[in-house]
């Protein structure tokens, strides 16, 4: 009798604890690990000073140049159109309130391309804000905790960005490929595009501001069955992001 009771005492306790643990794990899952991320941020913050700053100047400057080149090409084509539509003036929202942030963590899984930033709602970041690094668009804020935020990178498999080829305004969707390249699927059957063309975010994009540099076309497959595709080399160094800038959501839906 005694042994049975003792067994029950131990197993009973164990099953209660097990339930508590499962419930806790489920809660963490539903809150997107907010508690864990905060803890991670607390632990990681002293170590940030040890990380080397931006050490490789050359590729950064290169990326910057490419970004500006894309901007210029985009502005030129836009300017041409504006001349045609004489009198058309587009109101640009003043790009105030930028939030600089630093990458403190990478993705916790091979399949998703995410990074964790060291700023959150306390710094004014909200879900849906866009993230930019030297070189151009990097991603979208996916979830926020008080002191951290998680960014879905444009190289992720589930990321979709409406983009346009700056030279010819050929439109398409940029799909991530979990690498430093992405796949651009065109809407048109015969898009006017060639290797080396620069790609920027499209005015059609609901989630991202238009005219941000994204990448450069490095190969083309125009005979692909559902829609022609191009491989695009992304300008921002997705693999080694350090400092990024978070931009508030812009109403680009008009």
């Amino acid at each position: 009798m005694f042994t049975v009771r003792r067994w029950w005492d131990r197993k009973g306790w164990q099953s209660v604890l097990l339930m508590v643990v499962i419930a806790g794990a489920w809660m963490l899952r539903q809150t997107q690990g907010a508690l864990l991320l905060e803890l991670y941020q607390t632990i990681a913050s002293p170590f940030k000073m040890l990380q080397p700053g931006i050490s490789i100047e050359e590729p950064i400057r290169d990326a910057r140049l490419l970004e500006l080149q894309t901007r210029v090409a985009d502005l030129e084509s836009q300017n041409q159109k504006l001349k045609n539509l004489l009198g058309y003036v587009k109101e640009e929202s003043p790009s105030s309130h930028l939030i600089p942030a630093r990458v403190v963590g990478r993705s916790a899984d091979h399949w998703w391309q995410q990074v964790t930033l060291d700023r959150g709602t306390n710094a004014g970041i909200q879900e849906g804000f866009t993230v930019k690094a030297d070189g151009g668009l990097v991603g979208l804020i996916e979830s926020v905790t008080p002191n951290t935020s998680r960014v879905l990178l444009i190289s992720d498999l589930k990321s979709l960005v409406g983009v346009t080829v700056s030279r010819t305004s050929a439109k398409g969707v940029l799909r991530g490929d979990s690498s430093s390249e992405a796949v651009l699927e065109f809407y048109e059957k015969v898009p006017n595009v060639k290797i080396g063309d620069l790609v920027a975010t499209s005015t059609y994009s609901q989630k991202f501001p238009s005219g941000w540099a994204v990448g450069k076309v490095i190969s083309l497959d125009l005979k692909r069955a559902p829609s022609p595709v191009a491989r695009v080399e992304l300008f921002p160094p997705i693999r080694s992001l350090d400092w990024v800038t978070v931009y508030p959501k812009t109403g680009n839906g008009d």
Partner: protein
Amino acid sequence: MKISRFSGNRQRGPKLSKKSLIQPLARWHPGTRQLVNWLVMFGSVLLCLLMLPTRFPGMELLGIGPNWLLIWVVSWSVKRSVFAGIIAGIILGLLQDGMTSPDPTHAISLGIVGGLTGLIQKQRFIQEDFISIALIVFGMAVLSETIFGLQLVLMGDYSGESVWAYYQRVALASAILNSLWAPVVYYPLNHWWQKIKLLEQF
């Protein structure tokens, strides 16, 4: 089985133990020991969770880091029952969901990994420890990547082609990396659990 000679007398434990750390451990109250055991369990899982987003130099291969939770699940279930393995896998899978995208869930792949590792019954068939653990982790990493890839395809939001292309690139790298780092998690945890098991047999 050697332990059975000592016939449950805790007073004699210290004299008989070979390893020095057992001596203080054996004198502890069983409740305290249980508590410390839970703390070690939670602490190691928490450490593995917090290691997931970091990439220390040398830990990266093709842009991916080791899946510490998978290594933990294998270390846990290798000397335990199938049920314990499945439960641990599901719990850690839910935790990993919290650290990254929750859809599709990681609980399925890690649960299956835990169950299968429990099924192997390593202690009965394989005596040697390190290489067999590395091999088990290697196989389980490939398995979990496969299951996760299948989940992605079955969800229907992703084209099978792109998932397959990524799977080919990542499965082998992940398996190699995980099996190389497996002893780092396995050795201390196994050491501790062996000791606890030894003491509970008194």
